[in-house]
């Protein structure tokens, strides 16, 4: 009986002890060796919030800046973390200028859907609670610029020499109505990935496989060749039916380069967007044929990213259209136990998107730079921009680029050792020679939805002509005079 009581007391004490441990604040404090004391508090939730504390001179002002970033963990977290890392340099610059203000940064970072992320900023802006800095897709400038949510930084950029280093071509993505509305944070390419092991199984020699990127760039290997090869692989049993070629599993920017490859144009001299029926029809014909020939499954647009990544990294698919960031995603999250990046190099290759023989015939890709933008509600846009300038340096941006599979934004990175020594980044970089962009237009979202309705239709068994009719109806209904259908 006594023994029983003893065990009861021991068990009760153990449970009590565990509760005490469990009730402790889950705070991780990291001391950073800079002039200021920086405390990083990491909440263990999907949304990561970090706060930076700094020492303020007597009589000075501590300015609280909030930055909001969309980032897939862990590889894209540099988007906001680089701002955290730049606080020290920004405050040092303020001290040097004799400015008694000091920046205290709070970052909010998670991996929300693009639409939700955008809506959140809009609602916050209207409620007067927008973050000072928002890092988002450049196409959102098309909505936020006209709505008055952003600071026009055109006249301010010259105050920060760091921005002279930004690749000139990328500034175009920050422009709307003749002004610049932010600073590029990253760039990327959207390549064709191919499974080298499966191509070898299909009878391709090593030389054939290794020369594929060059043959695509020269226009020798076209979109049609890719479909023929994929069909051959399905017929030969190298891949299952529907696994010859995969595109992304839901709507997104990728589908626009199909349209570009087919010879389509989207921007006009005015505000209205163009919908080129001939180009769209070619795209729909291609997609209908892909399903019809057994290359692509009619359920491919199922919206399930996990199955998509798993199918590719498990070696089930011959060709796939993805993004350069997928590379980092795969070696960070999907093939870690199989050798990480080395495994990817052994089994996968990448190249530009092949040209469409009945389109422009030219290889292509698409770049979707993310932009640091400053909210018009910010009381300290100069400090926000100062912080962004200190985050836009080659050391920080290169760390982010290597970790995330994105391309650098700075001219100096072309000769910066850590950047040039990254095999993946150096091989993806030439794709920018054939890159395209989304339009910065308030009508892009509706245009994209209409065009995507046609894609859904073509892959669901509608003929290409019917799919085109679906898209045109949608666009006319949704955009009216804001779309030129020709």
């Amino acid at each position: 009986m006594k023994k029983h009581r003893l065990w009861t007391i021991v068990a009760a004490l153990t449970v009590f002890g565990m509760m005490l441990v469990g009730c402790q604040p889950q705070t991780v404090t990291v001391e950073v060796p800079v002039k200021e004391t920086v405390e990083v508090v990491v909440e263990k939730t999907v949304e990561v919030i970090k706060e930076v504390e700094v020492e303020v001179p007597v009589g000075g002002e501590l300015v609280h800046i909030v930055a909001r970033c969309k980032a897939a963990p862990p590889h894209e977290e540099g988007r906001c973390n680089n701002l955290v890392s730049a606080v020290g340099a920004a405050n040092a610059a303020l001290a040097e200028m004799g400015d008694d203000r000091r920046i205290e940064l709070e970052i909010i970072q998670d991996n929300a859907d693009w639409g939700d992320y955008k809506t959140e900023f809009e609602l916050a802006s209207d409620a007067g609670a927008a973050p000072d800095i928002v890092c988002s897709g450049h196409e959102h400038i098309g909505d936020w610029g006209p709505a008055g949510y952003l600071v026009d930084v055109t006249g301010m950029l010259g105050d920060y020499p760091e921005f002279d280093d930004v690749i000139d071509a990328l500034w175009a993505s920050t422009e709307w109505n003749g002004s610049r509305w932010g600073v590029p944070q990253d760039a990327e390419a959207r390549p064709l990935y191919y499974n080298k092991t499966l191509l070898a199984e299909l009878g391709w020699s090593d030389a054939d496989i290794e020369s594929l990127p060059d043959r695509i760039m020269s226009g020798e290997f076209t979109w049609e060749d890719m479909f023929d090869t994929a069909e051959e692989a399905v017929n030969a049993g190298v891949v299952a039916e529907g696994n010859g070629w995969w595109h992304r599993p839901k709507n997104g920017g990728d589908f626009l380069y199909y349209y570009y490859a087919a010879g389509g144009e989207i921007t006009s001299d005015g505000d209205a967007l163009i919908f080129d029926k001939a180009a769209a029809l070619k795209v729909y014909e291609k997609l209908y044929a892909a399903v019809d020939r057994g290359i692509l499954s009619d359920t491919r647009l199922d919206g399930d990213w996990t199955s998509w990544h798993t199918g590719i990294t498990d070696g089930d698919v011959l060709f796939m259209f993805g993004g350069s960031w997928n590379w980092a995603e795969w070696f960070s999250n999907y093939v870690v136990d199989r050798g990480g990046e080395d495994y990817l190099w052994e089994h996968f290759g990448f190249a530009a998107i092949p040209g469409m023989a009945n389109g422009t015939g030219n290889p292509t890709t698409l770049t979707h730079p993310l932009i640091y933008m400053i909210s018009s509600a910010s009381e300290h846009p100069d400090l926000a921009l100062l912080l962004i300038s200190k985050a836009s340096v080659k050391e920080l941006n290169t760390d982010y680029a290597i970790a995330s599979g994105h391309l650098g934004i700075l001219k100096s990175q072309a000769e910066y050792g850590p950047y040039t020594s990254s095999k993946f980044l150096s091989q993806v970089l030439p794709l920018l020679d054939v890159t395209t962009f989304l339009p910065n237009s308030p009508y892009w979202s509706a245009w994209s939805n209409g065009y995507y309705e046609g894609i859904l239709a073509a892959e669901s068994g509608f003929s290409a002509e019917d799919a085109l009719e679906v898209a045109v109806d949608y666009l006319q209904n949704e955009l009216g005079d804001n779309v030129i259908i020709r």
Partner: protein
Amino acid sequence: MAEAIMGSGPVKGQAPPSRWAQLKATLGAWGFISPAAVLVLVFFFLPVVILFVISLTDLSSSNFSEPLTFINLENFTRLFKDKFFPKILGNTFFYVATTLSCFNVGMALVLALLTTHIDRRAGLFFRLIWLLPRITPSVIYILMWRRISHQPPFGLINQLLGPFGVEPQYWLFEQPWLFVILVNGFVGASFGLILFSSAIEAIPKDLITAAKVDGASTWQIIRDITLPQIRWPLLFVTTYQTLSLLTSFEYILLLTEGGPGLYTTEVWALTAYKRALKTYFGHNQWGYGAAWGFVLVIIGIVMSTIYLRVFRFGELVQEPKIDVL
């Protein structure tokens, strides 16, 4: 005497009370009802008015910060001109009618009858099991269904049927409506089940006993005693669940997003949500989405009115006849 008790009208020969006297007499009742009336006004009536007002504007994420621009009924014109408007409307009626008849009322009634005709404890246990889908968080519940019906080589159905030689399939995409109805029906059935069970158990036992003594079969008892006795909960569950299903879309959104393909399982409420709040690139058309939402309100009001007439709501709420004898 009975009339005096009921207060149903002036006594013959007497002058009718003045309006002020009538108001004074009912002032207390108005006082008691006013808190609830204010709540109904603010949370039920006013949102419909706001919805209608927004539906007359072109409010969207690109002009959110500007003053409202009224465009008359243009959003409604666009809505009715939408190529897939008839399909979405048809889908909505199919989804509501099938889920309601097979599960929310049909299955609920069958389960209620079964669980009230077996051992009381066993009945309670089965009713509790049917409550599980309702208390499971929506996302977890749908993840479970997606895993069950996932594409080959995944999917519980494929794993289970594989050994029997059944060709693996992407079941969710092969039979999307089946899964949409099952998913919603398993949740919806529990509501009616609880109400019907309580109503059945509240039927005076004397009636059942008397019927049995007279030689009535179980089916006759159900048809002639149980069902007429639970007409009120039947009306309530049918009306409430119809309105619930008309406006529910979260399970469909999580399960199929209205697909596969083009509008295969897209229902009205989901379209309203997508137009107003959910596009891939975040161009929200609140005005246009509100127009879709407002039409749904009209459909709901029409459906409720039809139900009230079919179930003779007036008769159900009239004073018991025994009191006016």
